[in-house]
């Protein structure tokens, strides 16, 4: 079933020949990367392999030094996070990117607060609260206090909030940088469920993770980076955790 979906559909996002240099450092070198509709792609690799750089290029935080990006077959340039959001690319950052001193709705709508009135400068607080509650319910995310600063939430609750807040924007591609890194077993399970639910809802998900069990739990395809180059691109059904680990560390395959 899944194989058929892949065969019959075009990638929603294609990167071709992407290189990124920071001064003399080659963070990425000639990387091709595809994401298909309703697909969960795991992006794996050692520290410094270029995973975060790659997703930041997709999210408009970095510009590639070389290479092209195609969205639904059309060449696009992503200059800023706003450009990425306009295309339907949402990112959940490793650093969580929450404002600890602000409450849940303010974080939920961070940077794109809805406005009301003719002046267009006043925030529509009621809509913020209503939409926040509705989305969190839909996703089955439980948060104790909506109107308290986010610093009073647990790690898992914060992660759920960080993931949940990208939902209402009709994102077609959701990128998650280490979503389970700082979480306990139970909380990780919830986040993985959330990823699967995003797929059910029609999203594609790119997940960066170091945890092989989590990767094989949710991913449809696994892309391996090493030293800024793509060294593996495998469907989950055609590979094993062993093989992926060998690709990550660069050990001889045979």
């Amino acid at each position, binding site marked *: 079933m899944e194989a058929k979906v892949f065969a019959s559909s075009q990638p929603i996002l294609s990167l071709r020949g992407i290189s990124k240099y920071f001064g003399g450092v080659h963070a990425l070198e000639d990387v091709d990367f595809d994401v298909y509709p309703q697909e969960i792609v795991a992006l794996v690799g050692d520290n410094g392999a270029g995973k975060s750089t790659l997703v930041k290029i997709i999210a408009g935080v970095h510009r590639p030094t070389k290479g092209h990006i195609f969205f639904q077959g059309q060449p696009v340039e992503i200059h800023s996070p*706003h450009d990425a959001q306009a295309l339907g690319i949402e990112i959940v950052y490793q650093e969580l990117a929450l404002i*600890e001193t602000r409450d849940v709705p303010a974080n939920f709508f961070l940077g794109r607060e809805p406005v009301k009135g003719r002046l267009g400068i006043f925030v529509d607080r009621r809509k913020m609260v209503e939409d926040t509650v509705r989305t969190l319910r839909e996703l089955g995310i439980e948060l104790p206090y909506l109107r308290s600063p986010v610093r009073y939430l647990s790690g898992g609750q914060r992660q759920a909030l960080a993931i949940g807040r990208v939902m209402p924007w009709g994102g077609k591609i959701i990128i998650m940088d280490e979503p389970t890194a700082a979480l306990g077993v139970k909380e990780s399970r919830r986040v993985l469920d959330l990823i699967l639910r995003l797929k059910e809802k029609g999203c594609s998900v790119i997940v960066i993770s170091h945890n092989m069990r989590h990767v094989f739990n949710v991913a449809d395809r696994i892309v391996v980076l090493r030293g800024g180059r793509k060294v593996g691109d495998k469907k989950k059904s055609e590979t094993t955790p062993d093989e992926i680990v060998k690709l990550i560390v660069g050990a001889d395959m045979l």
Partner: protein
Amino acid sequence: MRYVEPGLVLRFARNQLAALLVILGGMVLLLSLLTSTFLTANNIFNVLRAFSWIAIASFGQSIVIIGGGIDLSAGSNMAFAGIITAMLLLAGYSVVFSILVGLLITLGIGLLNGLMVSKTKLPPFIATLGTMSIVRGFCYGMTQGWPVRNLPRSFMFLGQTDIWRVPLPAIIMIGLAVFCAILLEKTKLGYHVYAVGGNEYAASLVGINTGRVKTIAFTLSGLFAGIGGLLMTARLGVAAPTAAQGYELDIIAAAVIGGISLTGGEGSVWGALIGAAIMQILRNALVLMGFPAYWQPAAIGAVIIGAVMIDMYRKRKV
């Protein structure tokens, strides 16, 4: 699934303003009992008038601090606005024109601070430490060190009139507090000020133009320092180059006592208003109770430390 809110007790404990109002109320109650002179209309209005300049400047300062910065040039800006306006008045320009130019210049200094912080990435402390000294130098240089006197009555009216016994500066102060509160709490810009101060990296990741937010915050701080400075000058009837020296610390202290965290991202202008009130009432109390004025700085210092310690403890506990 239900979204429960914290109980009333917890909400009250977490509410900075509530805690501040309790302290302020306690001070008022205590002073009313200890002295016969505190709770008279005359004294109250004098207190109001005396802290209105500091409070107004601290509103602008609050916006900067909530946005993660600090503005040390506020005191110099207060004096400079007075000097510019006074010199223009003596040169025969109209009151309205002179005031507008005075305010425009401090607004410009604020804008310069903002651009130095956002474009050249100077730390706010350094950038405004520099402008604090530069502007003070202009104050001395332009006046040769002499105070500017003999200001027209039509200007001094601003600082000295009462409307139904309420001093005009106090009314202006309340108006500006409402303006700042709406700006910070109801507008998109205000949300972004909190975001930049709370976590600048996160704010930039979601596409908030952090440089623009900071520049606007510093510009407003310059403007509000100018307004406070003009009210001070109008009240004193003289624009001295030494005026408002050291006020930047009072202005910052008002914000800090009012629960505005120096690390940014939280607090409100109402807190700064109450903070300024607490400082002035304390000064007033020491005078009414017969302590020599020389001891005031020690008392203010103790209040600053106490207020911040209470605030930190409160945040940790609940």
